[in-house]
């Protein structure tokens, strides 16, 4: 490597990264600042906001609501995504393209429209709003993501693997568990993490379909009106930021390892 030179594209890259990350880095920075106001100059180091965060019961409740919804949504979406991916990769169904497009519609409909229409339907059939309805709406938008992740994984490995398992005496059901499922594992983990993340920070649908039990984004939004409570929200933000960072790194590591085994098995 020669000496790094900052050409026009280099400057652009630095500005881009700065724009992307500096605001995000303000969150952990101010979460340690000894003041309730988010403004420079910094006043001094404190962990007080973190203590406050842990002791604030509604905030912790909201966090657990989000974790609960996210966990259920990611598992349910991944199961549905797997079923769809299996169907699309195994059979050459008539109208496959139309079907995939149809399933991916929630990806392109504005969430606010989706939120209003789901609310209308749920009201019409008298389903009370709760964490369940939030989870339901999140599943609607997560299934297509899961399906695409899993289709690319299932298409990635040799079809004769599944045939070989049947040839060796396993029923289609056992073939799925002994061969397809373990081979699709990197895709399944990626899908779980992706769906969890989507659900965890989703605001619009939760806003329309939630009740008095808020998810974390709803709770944070409601706290913006009270300056005194903001720093503990920042503290929580910092914790989530670090956690997601670790989770994303882990997911990428799993994905790469999957790619490696795959190329390793190619002839």
């Amino acid at each position, binding site marked *: 490597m020669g000496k790094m030179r900052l050409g026009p594209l280099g400057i652009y890259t630095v500005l881009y990264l700065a724009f992307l990350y500096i605001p995000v880095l303000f969150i952990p920075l101010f979460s340690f600042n000894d003041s309730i106001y988010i403004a420079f100059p910094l006043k001094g180091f404190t962990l007080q906001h973190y203590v406050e965060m842990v002791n604030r019961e509604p905030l912790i409740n909201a966090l657990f609501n989000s974790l609960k919804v996210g966990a259920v949504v990611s598992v349910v979406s991944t199961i549905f995504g797997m079923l769809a991916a299996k169907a699309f990769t195994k059979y050459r169904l008539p109208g496959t393209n139309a079907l995939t497009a149809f399933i991916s519609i929630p990806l392109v409909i504005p969430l606010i429209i989706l939120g209003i229409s789901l609310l209308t339907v749920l009201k019409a059939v008298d389903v009370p709003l709760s964490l369940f309805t939030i989870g339901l709406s999140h599943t609607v938008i997560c299934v297509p993501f899961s399906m695409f992740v899993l289709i690319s994984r299932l298409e990635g490995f040799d079809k004769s693997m599944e*045939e070989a*398992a*049947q040839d*060796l005496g*396993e029923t289609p059901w056992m073939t799925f568990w*002994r061969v397809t499922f373990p081979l699709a594992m990197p895709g399944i983990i990626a899908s779980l993490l992706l769906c969890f993340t989507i659900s965890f920070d989703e605001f619009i649908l939760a806003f329309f379909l939630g009740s008095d039990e808020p998810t974390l984004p709803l709770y944070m939004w409601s706290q913006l009106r009270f300056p005194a409570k903001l720093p503990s929200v920042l503290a929580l933000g910092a914790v989530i930021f670090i956690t997601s960072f670790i989770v994303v790194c882990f997911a990428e590591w799993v994905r790469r390892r999957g790619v490696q*085994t795959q190329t390793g*098995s190619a*002839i």
Partner: protein
Amino acid sequence: MSDESYISIQNISKHFGSVKACDEVTFDIRQGEFFALLGPSGCGKTTLLRMLAGFEIPTYGEIYIDGQPMSLIPPYKRPVNMVFQSYAIFPHLTVAENIAFGLRKDKLPKAELDKKVDEALEMIALPGYGHRGADELSGGQRQRVALARALIKKPKVLLLDEPLGALDKKLREQMQLELRDLQREVGITFVFVTHDQEEALTMSDRIAVMAEGRTLEIEAPAPLYERPKTAFCADFLGTMNFFEGSIDNIGDGEAAIKTGDMGTMVSRGPNMDFSSGNDVLAAIRPENIEIAFDKPASGSFVEGKVRASAFLGDRAHVYVNVKGRKDPVLTAMQNLGGAASRMGDEGEHTVWLTWSEESVILLPRH
């Protein structure tokens, strides 16, 4: 059922839309036979193999294995196992787990299972490889593991889809002999698909030559090569010089053929059931044509000039232009004492091509 028809393929057809991958194929395979399905790509050989395995359902017709009709039996209940072209070694399992994959339902005690796997590893000459990962194997080793994984099930029939296609030339030649030995040792009926005529000739007891979804000839390698009955087989197995003509005179195991470019040729070869006036191809293998530098005193011969020669080390292919004929005649000569390397270049020598009348094979022309 008898040993003669251990596998009986009866009137099997497989249509994919308007494409007839297999078109009313009927033949039998004997017990303990090493049987090749040979043909160019798209001839239906793989489709037929997959119907034996149960991965494709025949459009109509029936396959019997050991007397049992197979059409309602799913792949996982058939008494056959398959070695896939890609070998399909499970990448998430070790070599031992791959080999033991098909034994799950037998519920063997651990010690016995280990013993079986060890024996299988011994058989494929990979002892001690059990705990290796699938991605640590070379192409040849993968193939052996795929073989062991299938044979440990003790199938009535082992199916092999282009088993040597993924290997390099040296390894392929070695594996041809090994597969042959292994088949004799285990005594299981092997059915394998190949597009490589040399592979089919080397390994099989009998070969079914397929083209366009049909079987053309089913024969042992030597008669199939020496006495083909169709121009397609004559051409597909090895190389062949064809001379177009029509029967002038036939009888007593001898025929005179009037050809456009070689004058009158005499055949005392196989396939004499033609009558005068029939359009035929007179065919001669390159190795049955000799090159002489002096005009022969008698027999069948023709004068020509060397157009090109391809030196192949142990032998040479010499292309000779014959007056009145567009395509050169191909001859093959052994490189005895360097004879082939002295063939020289284009137009240098006037040569005489001679052949025995027994080596002229008559084939129907369509």
